Structure formats: structure tokens, C-alpha cells
């Protein structure tokens, strides 16, 4: 067995930090509910929904770690299925309803009607979208919605998913090229949340490239951020 590197150990330590925090939130909420600390049915329901969102956040994080350990999503080519883009985008955004509400950040799909499809692994595409949405909820500007659009580019035949929003702190241009490198976190992210694994965007890039696509990021003035995912339609 090879000796773990400093990157492995730092990443694991950060990962534990990231997972324990929401789990502590869930345990605290359950303990409060069990002991009648929270008054009112509506508040109790809100706290339960928030706890569910925290658990879902943990599941996404653990899946990222599993992906890293396996070096792939553990899927075979024959697992590919038809993916309806508006559907997978809406499903992924739904996980962030509670967290988004608390931070006043909505995720809006602009074109819900055009049922563009691609052939691929739905769970992996969902993992990519959830990691990117998670970043917007964590590091996005409060009160500013995240806009998602999807279309097929006629010239290339590729499916395009554009995700636009505002970062609470602008992304440094020098950081931009490094986002997606294993363990890297932008300075804008560290100003809001001290610890993170730098795993999510790395996994996104790996999955998208594994599906035959590409991930492009832009950051502009006043914190504008754009993620552009290009995926083959498989047709």
C-alpha cells in the first residue's frame, strides 16, 4: 500500500470537516425535536426539511469521495440512458431548495419547455450539476438568482448547459485556471467558508471529460460567474 501524500491527508481532513458540520446540524436538530425544544408545527417541519437537505449535502460529498477513490463514477458504457436536460437540471436544483431559501438564492431554469436530450449517465450529470449548484449556494451573492439554460448548439451538435450567477466575492482571474484542480479552492471561496475539500469542481471536470464533453468557466466584473458545460448528445 502506498504512503498517503500531504494532499491526500489535507483533502481527507477537509472532507471530514465538511461532512461533520452538516451531520452535527442534523444531530442537533433531531435532539431538539426529540426534546420539544422547537415550538410550532411549521417551524418543526422547516427544521426537518433543513435536516434532510443537510443529509443530502453529505451524500453528495461522500459520492464525490467515492468517485475520487474509484477514479470514475463506477458506471459502464452500457449504463448510458437518455437524459432529458430540463428534467435532470430541475431534479438537481430541487436538492438546494431549503439551503437556497435560507440564503435567498433561487436556481431558475429559463427554458423548461424544450425537451433537449443527450445520451449519458444521468446520475453523473446530476452529480456535476449538484456540485456546481452547491458552489453557487455556498459562495453566491445573497438575493441574486442563479440562471440555468440548456440548448443544442447547431454548429457542433453538442448540448450546452449554461449556469450563470454572481459570486459574493469576485473570482480572481489567476484562480480561474486552477478551479477544477484537485484540492484547489479560490480566494473568493475561502473568504466565505474557511474549509473545503476542493473536490467538487475536480469531480465535475473529470465526469464531464469522461462523458466526452468539456467544462468552461468565466468570471467577470462585479462577481459574475459562468459555467458552460458542453456534452455530446450521443446521436
Amino acid at each position, binding site marked *: 500500500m502506498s504512503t498517503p501524500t500531504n494532499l491526500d491527508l489535507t483533502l481527507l*481532513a477537509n472532507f471530514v470537516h465538511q461532512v*461533520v*458540520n452538516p451531520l*452535527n446540524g442534523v444531530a442537533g436538530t433531531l*435532539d431538539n425535536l426529540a426534546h420539544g425544544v422547537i415550538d410550532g408545527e411549521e417551524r418543526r417541519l422547516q427544521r426537518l426539511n433543513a435536516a434532510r437537505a443537510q443529509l443530502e449535502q453529505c451524500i453528495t460529498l461522500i459520492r464525490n469521495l467515492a468517485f475520487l477513490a474509484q477514479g470514475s463514477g463506477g458506471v459502464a458504457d452500457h449504463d448510458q440512458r437518455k437524459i432529458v436536460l430540463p428534467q435532470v437540471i430541475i431534479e438537481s436544483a430541487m436538492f438546494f431548495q431549503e439551503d437556497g431559501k435560507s440564503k435567498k438564492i433561487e436556481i431558475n431554469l429559463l427554458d423548461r419547455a424544450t425537451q433537449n436530450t443527450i445520451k449519458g449517465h444521468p446520475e453523473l450529470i446530476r452529480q456535476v450539476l449538484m456540485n456546481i449548484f452547491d458552489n453557487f449556494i455556498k459562495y453566491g451573492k445573497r438575493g441574486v438568482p442563479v440562471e440555468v439554460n440548456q440548448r443544442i448548439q447547431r454548429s457542433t451538435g453538442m448540448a450546452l448547459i449554461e449556469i450563470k450567477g454572481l459570486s459574493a466575492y469576485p473570482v480572481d482571474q489567476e484562480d480561474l485556471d486552477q478551479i477544477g484542480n484537485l484540492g484547489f479552492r479560490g480566494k473568493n471561496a*475561502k*473568504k466565505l467558508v*474557511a474549509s473545503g475539500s476542493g473536490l467538487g469542481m475536480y469531480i465535475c471536470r473529470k465526469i464531464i471529460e469522461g462523458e466526452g464533453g468539456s467544462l468552461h468557466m468565466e468570471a467577470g466584473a462585479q462577481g459574475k460567474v459562468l459555467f458552460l458545460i458542453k456534452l455530446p448528445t450521443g446521436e
Partner: protein
Amino acid sequence: MAKTTDSKTVVLVDDELHNMSWMVDYLSSRGLRTLTASNANDAVAILEQEIYRAIIVDLNIPIMDPLTNTALAKGDVYGRFPGLYVAFHARNKGYRDRQVVIYSVHRDAAVSEEVARLGCTYIIKGRPKEIKLELDAVVSFDPTLP
């Protein structure tokens, strides 16, 4: 040592406050209001206002200029764990040892040493029952009262 000037308010400092709403609920059930901050700079600004009932600080929080170098100047451990700087600042403002609680996910030997020097409470995040016991002990009496 200073006297508590706002005995009904606890300050909670954490960069992921949505994960700490259970603590706000718990403190509220004990009749305490919670003021929140999500970085060391905001926490220090809040501490300038009053001597609150207690301050509960996550060790791993963001810190920004102009405080970054001030914290680093106190030692490497303050640079790695800016929450420690907030605890130091609180103690300097006159908060008693029992009024300053810091917590983290991992226990760190260098933090333990510094905490012993500062004189404040250090707890590990994980089991809310244990944290609640500690909170109960903290809010059960005001150490600044005669």
C-alpha cells in the same frame, strides 16, 4: 474584568451558520437571543459593542484584512485557526474564561495549549448532547455577577 452588559444575548460565530440553527433554537429555548457572525472580522466588530452573556466560536472561520496579519503575528496557530484570535480578543475585552467557548471538528494539540493559556472552554463539534451540556454549564450562571 468587565461585567456583562447584555446578559440575554449570546454571540455565535460560524461560517456555516445554516448548520448551527439547532444551537440558535436551543439557546432561544433557554431564553437567550443569538447574534451571529460568519467571519473573524465581523465577530470582533460585534464584541466591540457589549459584553454579551457568552461567545461561542468555531475555530475554522474566514479572516480578512486588516486582521489577517494581526492574527498571524500572534503565532502560526492563530493563522491556522482564526477563531482563536476572536477568543483572544474576547478575553482581552474582559470576557471571563467561562464566557468564551471555542469549538472545532478536530482536536488540535497546539490549540489545546493556547486555549489553556488563554483560559477558555474548548469543545469538539460532533455530539450535540455534549455541546448542550457545555452550553448549559455556561449559561447556568453569569460569572461577572457578585
